[in-house]
């Protein structure tokens, strides 16, 4: 009969294995392209996302679209080619959790004016991950106003 100590040791090894595996970190990219301007103050974009499941990759694609508008700009639309947040580091010195909370609490969802189904454009085995494309419409005008109220974006003027 195998001793309890053996089973306990095996359990520890298994737990250590799963905890020590490095998490996949997907680097920020600029894979957000302009599609259309369906209404004043609203922009339709297609964004690429990555994740270990299709659902996670879809969320990543949506968040990347917002991150590109906020921090990098969308070169294919001249109205947003400059990032909305001029200096993220300066803002985070005063409000360190403003942006992390914005994404962690899914607050960005209220600026989504429309979205289409996600399409899987790639699947990778090691590590297991998916590459997806997602089209969505973002109310960038209200997004700007939201961050103006938070002091992250300077209101127009001096």
């Amino acid at each position, binding site marked *: 009969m195998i001793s309890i100590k053996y089973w306990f040791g095996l359990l520890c090894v298994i737990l250590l294995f799963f905890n020590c595996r490095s998490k996949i970190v997907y680097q920020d990219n600029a894979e957000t*392209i*302009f599609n*259309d*301007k369906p209404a*004043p*103050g609203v922009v339709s974009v297609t964004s690429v996302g990555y994740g270990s499941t299709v659902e996670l990759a879809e969320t990543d694609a949506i968040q990347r679209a917002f991150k590109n508008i906020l921090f990098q700009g969308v*070169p*294919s*639309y*001249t*109205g*947003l*080619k*400059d990032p909305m947040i*001029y200096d993220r580091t300066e803002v985070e010195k005063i409000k360190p959790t403003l942006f992390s909370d914005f994404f962690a609490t899914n607050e960005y969802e209220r600026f989504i004016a429309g979205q289409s189904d996600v399409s899987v454009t790639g699947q990778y085995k090691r590590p297991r991950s998916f590459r997806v494309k997602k089209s969505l419409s973002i109310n960038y*005008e209200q997004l700007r*106003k939201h961050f*103006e109220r938070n002091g992250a974006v*300077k*209101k*127009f*003027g*001096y």
Partner: protein
Amino acid sequence: MRIFLVLLIGSACCLFPNLNLLAQAEREVVQMQPMIMVIPFAKEGENIRTVLEDDIVRRVVVTKVQEGFDTRGFTTVDFLAKLKAAELDGIITSNDQSDIKSQLAEYSGADIYTEVEAYYEESPDGKNAVRIILKGFDAFTGQALGSKTGSSPKFITADFSKLAEKALERREGNVQVDMIEEFLNVMQSNFIEINEIGRAIKVMFVLDQNAEYDFDAETADGSILEYKIEDWIDENAYLNNYSPAKTIGPRILFDQVRIPLREEGRNYTPNKFGRELRRAFSNVKLTEFPDAKLNLAVEVRGGTLYVTFK
């Protein structure tokens, strides 16, 4: 009874603890904003008074630009309303278009102009286009604050107002061009720069026609008046940022002197700068007139300071 009074006063203190603090609390200072006016460009032979009435394209573009400012929460000065008011008040005294603009600039109080130019591009095959130029500049220093230009694609149409809308928002290859958003973003980046390095004003020093001295006059401390002026500007321009002096006849002109938007948490205006200048020179004496102090008249017109030595 006494206990009741004590309890009543005690409750009042608990319910309204911060009355004193509220009264003393420092109110947040609201940054003074520039006044912006959207104006049509008047070509040679055109009358700026009637150009909007005569040209639907410029009317459409002026309105679209004003809408753009409104969307950013910024109210502009209405050009037509100000022009009519200026005419009613007898301010417009000339037919020269550049004079009308200057007179309107002073009267309206606008600090910044956004000028709209629109050109029709008609071709013999019926394919027409509209070219639009947007320019923002400081009304007094002429400092450019942003410019954008663009043409619509060519269409067989005589609806030039539609072509103007196509010029403002159009596709160029893989890029969607939005002229007004881009223009406003450029202006905003210039405003951010102004916040950092100060606002530019023009300072002109002139001698009164009855003045018995000139700018080469020696001062009591052994300096020359002209040098004292330059030294004062050098010391008081925000971040030591100013353009070199230009001597034009009996005048000394500084095209751009930077002043801060705020000082000690409060709005700082060209008027305050003028007051400091006047205070500084009121104690200056000339060797030729040891008993007399300099008499200065300082006038602020928009973004220009006129300093007259009497």
